[in-house]
């Protein structure tokens, strides 16, 4: 019986270099020691890291005045009062579809970016990438760059090794703790919970989640790193279906690089490729692959190999861009000595995604702009479904929930129609007959009213309309409810 094998490199099909064709089904993880790269993409990554971490750590501290009695935190998911605040937007449980819309928008934006620029999300902004990058930076500060780290890990346990390891893990844990600590600020008033956290007055859930996020940050960014992207994250699989040969990806231009091999100074550049097999692109890679094997599932397209290669090309006096953002079609065309097609931003899928994004964005903006500030919901009593009164009339009970999304108290007029001769009264108010009744509604909350509706037995109509109208702004909301009787 031969060994069970699995080909996981479908990438070389377009005529590129032949990837290693077979790998064991199970392979032990090999520790990766990414070397520090220098160049414009490394710079971009530092800037993006500073920006994303800055947003994450500072956002909960931004204040936003909303009026008396309403939280003044700009971004807050307030589970206790069931509201989500985002600057000028307030999402009530009744508006939960906006949250769904936001998630759809985020997904579509990811699709669009993927079909334009490949996995830029993975390479630059994904939290796993950002925190791993930060952790490797700390690791480098304590243990040195690639070669030094490899030496240290191979060497015996000495005092030097011990304090470097200890220092690294301590700083990792501190970063992890700040990460977990910042997370809970999004769910409570930030200054209050931050103070309460240290005086022991914060809710139990705050400690639990801070601890959980501390651990996940420490393990995911410190220990698991690229395994999260390769084995745990579904995105590499999904993005394979979204990208195509027209998308810009971090690509090794084999048309220019092959045949590769070490080169003596005396050798001529004729009849050989530009790749001198210096291995720099492999050494800087945070996921431990060789980009020259073509597009790979593990590749997060962080572009650090571009920096490494460009540096080497400059040193040996060849043009940069042997590894670059390029499309599969362009590389294949050049390999076949044809003119590469121009990169096209407008393609069917990018247009489709853009149209969908615009449509949903317009819908959401329209929805937010015209969002109702009152909402009426009617719940009919289930038990008893109806009662017969002593005068022979049939009576049904309802609970009316009135939502007032504005910060001031309002007056609402309740009117009920639909059955000939109906009358209603609201518990706690003097009311008889079918004339509309004005009730007060408290600011920024939900009020419940108990309504009893009675109608002559045998009336044919079985549906009633309960409508609510703001006496000042004339805003209305209408509900239909069933009216049950014995027949």
């Amino acid at each position, binding site marked *: 019986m031969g060994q069970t094998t699995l080909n996981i490199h479908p990438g070389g099909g377009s005529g590129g270099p032949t990837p290693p064709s077979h790998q064991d089904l199970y392979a032990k993880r090999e520790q990766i020691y990414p070397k520090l790269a220098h160049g414009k993409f490394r710079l971009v990554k530092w800037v993006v890291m500073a920006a994303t971490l800055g947003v994450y750590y500072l956002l909960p501290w931004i204040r936003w005045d909303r009026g008396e009695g309403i939280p003044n935190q700009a971004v807050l998911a307030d589970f206790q009062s069931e509201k989500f605040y985002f600057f000028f937007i307030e999402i009530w449980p009744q508006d939960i579809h906006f949250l769904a819309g936001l998630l759809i928008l985020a997904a579509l934006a990811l699709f669009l970016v993927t079909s334009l620029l490949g996995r830029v999300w993975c390479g630059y902004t994904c939290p796993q990438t950002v925190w791993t990058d930060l952790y490797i930076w700390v690791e480098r500060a304590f243990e040195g760059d690639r070669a030094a780290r490899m030496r240290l890990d191979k060497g015996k346990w000495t005092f030097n090794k011990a304090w470097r390891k200890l220092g690294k893990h301590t700083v990792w844990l501190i970063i992890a703790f700040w990460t977990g600590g910042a997370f809970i600020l999004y769910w409570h008033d930030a200054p209050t919970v931050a103070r309460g956290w240290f005086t022991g007055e914060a809710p139990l859930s705050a400690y639990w989640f801070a601890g959980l996020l501390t651990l996940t940050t420490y393990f995911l960014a410190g220990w698991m790193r690229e395994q999260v992207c390769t084995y745990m994250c579904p995105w590499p699989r999904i993005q394979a279906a979204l990208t195509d040969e027209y998308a810009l990806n971090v690509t090794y231009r084999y048309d220019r690089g092959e045949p590769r091999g070490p080169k003596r100074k005396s050798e001529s550049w004729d009849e050989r490729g530009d790749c001198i097999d210096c291995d720099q692109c492999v050494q800087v890679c945070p996921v431990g692959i060789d980009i020259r094997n073509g597009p790979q599932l593990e590749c997060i397209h962080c572009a650090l190999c571009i920096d490494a290669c460009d540096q080497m090309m400059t040193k040996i006096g060849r043009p940069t861009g042997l590894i670059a953002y390029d499309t599969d079609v362009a590389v294949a065309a050049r390999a076949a000595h044809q003119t590469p097609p121009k990169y096209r931003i407008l393609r069917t899928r990018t247009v489709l995604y853009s149209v969908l994004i615009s449509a949903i964005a317009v819908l959401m903006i329209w929805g937010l702009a015209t969002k109702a500030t009152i909402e009426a919901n009617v719940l009919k009593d289930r038990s008893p479904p109806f009662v017969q009164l*002593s005068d022979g009339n049939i009576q049904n009970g309802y609970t009316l929930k009135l939502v007032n999304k504005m910060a001031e108290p309002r007056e609402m007029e309740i009117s009920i129609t639909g059955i000939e001769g109906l009358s209603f009264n609201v518990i706690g108010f003097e009311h008889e007959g079918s004339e509309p009744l004005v009730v007060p509604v408290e600011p920024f909350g939900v009020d*419940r009213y108990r309504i009893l509706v009675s109608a002559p037995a045998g009336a044919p109509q079985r549906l009633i309309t309960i409508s609510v109208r703001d006496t000042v702004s004339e805003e209305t909301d209408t509900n239909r409810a069933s009216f049950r009787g014995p027949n």
Partner: protein
Amino acid sequence: MANEIKDIDDHSGIETTGHSWDGIKELNNPLPRWWLYIWYGTIIWAVVYMVLMPAIPALPGMGTNTTGLRNHSDRDLVAAAVADLKEARVTQSETLLEASLEEIETDRGLQQFALAMGESLFGDNCATCHGAGGRGAVGYPILADDVWLWDGTLDGIEYTLRHGIRHDGDLDTRFSLMPSFGRDNLLSTDQIDDLTDYVLLISGQEHDAAAAGRVAELYQQQCASCHGVDGTGDRTQGAPNLTDQEWLFGGSRDDIYNTIYNARNSHMPAWQDRLDDASIKALAVYVHTLGGGE
């Protein structure tokens, strides 16, 4: 021989268990490390738990179980939680006690509190007989309509809740007694038959007019003192209106005959010893708002 010499599988190079079934041997692979360590972890955890928490039942001289170093008791926790809840409710309960029933019902804040409290109290204590939402059942009045045997005002409902109906242990309980006309031989079965037709007549149902006519006089002698000359009942005695369509024990011929023959005197416990005053007030408001409060 298997005890002494390790049996190594040729193909995989791994030791076997030494057992052979029709020539098939089982590889003695070690347990996965992660599994083993978790298992050791649970053993350590169990020891720690036994020391800290109640764990071993019925050791002599130790009560029902060991208490553990933490002295943990679920029973105490429940008692503490109940006490906490009572304390948390104190302020609102006090406002309920101070306000009149009418104030509770018309003040929005008090009303919401009383209804929420009343709803859960009703579910725990009253719905067993009166049904969810006061829908009623045979022998147990509907509380959601406007037909009341005794009193449908806020104060009347509170009185009924406090003292109950025909409740033995309460001198102020609402009380009346309908005689068992048949069982105690006060009337003959023929008379009861005819009286049944009379009740069917005054409640507007199908009846034998001749039979009803025979006992018009008898009704005035035997029944009118409680149910009224015209049969519309008397709330001071809890005597139901016989002329409407509401029947506590059913309005068919058989039901009515049965009622006259055996009498119906149902009971409701007095709640003032079981519930505190604030609870009774909240319940009174809740029942009053169910649909037919007066």
